[in-house]
C-alpha cells in the first residue's frame, strides 16, 4: 500500500492496520518536519505531489522491496499540503518474519521514495522567505536529497 494523504497521518493507526501474526519483526520509519535546514529556521513545510505518478512510482518501490527482501507486508504513506513543525510527513512500515529483512527493506523504501516519487517540498523560513528544496542546486536528478 502506497498512499498520499491530505489529512494528518496517525502512526498508531497505520501500525495497527499492518500488523501480522506471522511477523516476528515490524520496523517503521517516521519522517517529521524539523525546525531547521542548512542553518535556516524552518516554520512550516508545504508538500505537493503529482498524485497519479507518485502513487504508481510508490507502488513500484514497494513491489521492488517485496522482490528483493523476504517480507510479509510493506506500506508507505506520504502527506501533502502544509505541515507544521514535528508533523508526520512520511511513514513507512515493514513486516517480516525476521528483523534483518525488515530493517533493510524499510531503509530501501524511504531512500528510494525520497529520490524517485514526484513529491516536492517548499520550506517556509522564519525570515519570511520560502524555497522549493533541491530546485536551486546542481547535480544529477537522482543524486539529490540524500539527507533528511
Amino acid at each position, binding site marked *: 500500500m502506497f498512499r498520499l494523504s491530505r489529512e494528518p497521518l496517525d502512526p498508531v493507526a497505520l501500525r495497527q492496520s499492518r500488523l501480522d501474526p506471522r511477523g516476528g519483526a515490524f520496523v517503521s520509519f517516521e*519522517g517529521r518536519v524539523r525546525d531547521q535546514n542548512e542553518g535556516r529556521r524552518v516554520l512550516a513545510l508545504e*508538500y*505537493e*505531489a*503529482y498524485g*497519479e*505518478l507518485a502513487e*504508481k*512510482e510508490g507502488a513500484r518501490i514497494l513491489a521492488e522491496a517485496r522482490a528483493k527482501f523476504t517480507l510479509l507486508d510493506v506500506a508507505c504513506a*506520504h502527506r501533502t499540503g502544509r505541515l507544521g513543525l514535528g508533523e508526520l*510527513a*512520511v511513514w513507512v512500515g515493514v513486516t517480516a518474519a525476521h528483523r534483518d529483512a525488515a530493517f533493510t527493506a524499510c531503509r530501501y523504501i*524511504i531512500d528510494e*521514495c*525520497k*529520490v*524517485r*516519487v*514526484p*513529491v*516536492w*517540498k*517548499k520550506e517556509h523560513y522564519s525570515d519570511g522567505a520560502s524555497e*522549493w*528544496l*533541491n*530546485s*536551486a*542546486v*546542481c*547535480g*544529477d*536528478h537522482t543524486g*539529490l*536529497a540524500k539527507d*533528511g
Partner: protein
Amino acid sequence: MKTVQLQYFALLRDQRGVATESLTTTAATAGELYERLREQHGFTLGPAHVRAALNGEFAPWDAPLRAGDTVVFIPPVAGG
C-alpha cells in the same frame, strides 16, 4: 501542430505562473517542448535536472509528442 495538456508542479508552476495549460505546438518531442518553454518562461532548471512524464508515466526526452498528450515536467523531487 498538435495540442497537448500541460501540468506544472512546484518550482515550474511558480515560474510558469499557472498549474495547467493547453498548448498548441510544433515541438516533436518532450525535450524539444521543454527547451521552448524554458526559453519562453525563463525556467531556471536545465534538462539535466528535470524529467518528463507523458500521460502519467515517466518518458525519455526523445519521446514523441502526440495530440492530446498530458505532459508534465518534473523538477528535482524532495519527498520525505
